[in-house]
């Protein structure tokens, strides 16, 4: 009896679904988008997955999120090959390596499966569009907070990302744009520590001996901020250290008062936007823009004062889309 009931309900759902879908270019219920991220044990990509699933729910399409067991681009290509065999309707790819993924994208092109590129730019193959975080904005948020906190006066040191990397160039552009507006702020030094914790600690050690007075260190990512803060602690000096990305370890350091703040690089919205644009392409035949810039999840720097609010706002957003946070 129970089974008959559930079968009837299921049949009804399918019929309603098909009827609704008939209006669109393709039935949402039959549409399957796969989102391939870099790594699902990393919280950043887990939130990206949630974003993708939320967008899928909104469009009523099926979204599967996958990541390689091993952090390697060839394993991502293998996943793409499987998805091509399964004939999914579209693949959203977050490449571990922008150059390495190209052969995977080309294989999907050959099978006429649309590919959307998210977060890390692929250097070749045909994609329907790209979306990524607005690095310039992240830099601006950090720089603006620096100017406000120092009241437009003070000594600042900047640790840049890997020389030549587009994210490093854009984050730096945003930071300096804000600092330039406050002539009372002196940039004592701006040098690269290659996004690397170890390198940042060494560079900071040298800068600490070179400059007896530093008020603030602006780092292009959290890993460098965490390295710099260790060097500062060891030298028994005090200054505000800021990072970007809001990785869990940095948020922990912010709560402990070891780092002044960090900027959210918003995995959730990146996942949401990519699946949303892909769904619109499949269902409504809307071609996505070539380059979509996703904004930060928090309009300002996450500090000890608002870290709890930030976590709460995030939790509410997840709740809104019915995502269970473990």
């Amino acid at each position, binding site marked *: 009896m129970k089974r008959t009931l559930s079968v009837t309900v299921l049949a009804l759902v399918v019929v309603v679904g098909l009827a609704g879908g008939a209006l669109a270019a393709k039935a949402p219920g039959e549409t399957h988008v796969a989102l391939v991220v870099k*790594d699902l044990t*990393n919280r950043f990509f887990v939130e990206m997955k949630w974003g993708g699933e939320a967008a899928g729910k909104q469009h009523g399409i099926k979204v599967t999120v996958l990541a390689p067991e091993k952090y390697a681009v060839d394993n991502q290509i293998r996943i793409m090959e499987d998805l091509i065999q399964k004939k999914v309707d579209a693949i959203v790819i977050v490449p571990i390596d922008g150059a390495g993924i190209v052969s995977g994208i080309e294989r999907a092109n050959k099978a006429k499966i649309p590919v959307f590129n998210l977060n890390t730019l692929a250097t070749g193959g045909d994609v329907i569009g790209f979306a990524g975080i607005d690095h310039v904005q992240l830099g601006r948020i950090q720089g603006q907070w620096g100017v406000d906190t120092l009241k437009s006066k003070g000594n600042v040191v900047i640790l840049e990302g890997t020389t030549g990397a587009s994210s490093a160039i854009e984050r730096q552009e945003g930071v300096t744009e804000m600092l330039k507006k406050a002539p009372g702020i002196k940039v004592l*030094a701006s*040098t690269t520590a290659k996004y690397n*914790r*170890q390198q940042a*600690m060494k*560079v900071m050690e040298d800068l600490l*001996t070179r400059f007896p007075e530093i008020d603030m260190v602006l780092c292009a990512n959290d*890993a460098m901020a965490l390295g710099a803060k260790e060097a500062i602690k060891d030298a028994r000096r005090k200054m505000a250290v800021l990072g970007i990305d809001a990785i869990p370890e940095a948020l922990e350091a912010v709560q402990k008062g070891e780092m002044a703040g960090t900027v959210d690089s918003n995995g959730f919205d990146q996942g949401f936007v990519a699946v949303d644009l892909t769904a619109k392409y499949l269902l409504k035949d809307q071609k996505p823009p070539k380059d979509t810039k996703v904004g930060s999840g928090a309009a300002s720097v996450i500090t000890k004062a608002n870290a709890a609010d930030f976590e709460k706002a995030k939790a509410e957003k997840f709740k809104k889309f019915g995502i269970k946070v473990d």
Partner: protein
Amino acid sequence: MTLPTRALYRVAAVAAILAVVWIFVPRFGTESNLINLLRQAFLLALVSTGVSLSMLVAGLDLSIGAVAALSSCLAATLIVQGYVGPGILAGLAIGALAGMLNGIMIAKLRLPFFIMTFSMMFIIRGLALTYTQGTSIHGFPRSFTWLGKSFLGPIPMPVVVGAVVLGLLHILLTKTTFGRITYAVGANAEAARFSGLAADRNLIQAYALSGVLASLSGLIYIARLNAADADLGMMWPLEGIAVAVIGGIAFSGGVGNILGLILGGIVMAVVGNCVNLLGLPARFQDFFIGFVIILVVLIDHVTQKRGKAVK
């Protein structure tokens, strides 16, 4: 020309560099900078010990950075739970194991050392990334971080550890059978084999020791950073080679004094330090290091030739 006089040239060259830098680079001679420099120099020397040992047996260990990353990440998991001693031992054991594997493949299966340690570098780095999944292991107890952060009087602990390790290695290489065989194998492995020396066993031991030293360097670095991640030591093989070459360890094997690494470490640290103190772009560091290596080796060649002529 005898070895001590050649070493003397080297010391004189480094002293000359230091003198110039001391005069022209502002804040170089401050106490805090010199302590900072000493720490960086000994850490570099320590990183180079593994590479140097493999160079002494006419090989090269390119896997040291990866081995340091994997072993220190695994050790860190135990250390954050409070198991400091077991963590350190486990880290060193993994280094020994990886090194031994290198040695066995090179000595017994006659795999070219470059191919073996180069592949090992990728395999071990891959394992480290898989293990940490891109995150870090952080927040060590003080009973561990003192290894990288504390001082003995005015001297930073990494300097003390570095000095002790280099001292022990020097004794091992100059006063023991292992040392004598190492130099013999490095000079001519076939000849050493024919004269009945346990050349293969020596090779395996040298690579195993290289692995242990890589792990030890890794442990001291994570104690300093108060965190371990799979990115550790990406540049170590190249930095280690630079320190070794400047320190007088010959690529052809069998020549060089391990204490020369202190000089190599000082030169490398001074170049990096000056680039930052002068506010030059970071790329200048690579540029200068390249120059210094060629210069030092050139001086070596010239003095060596003259020595032969005098003889």
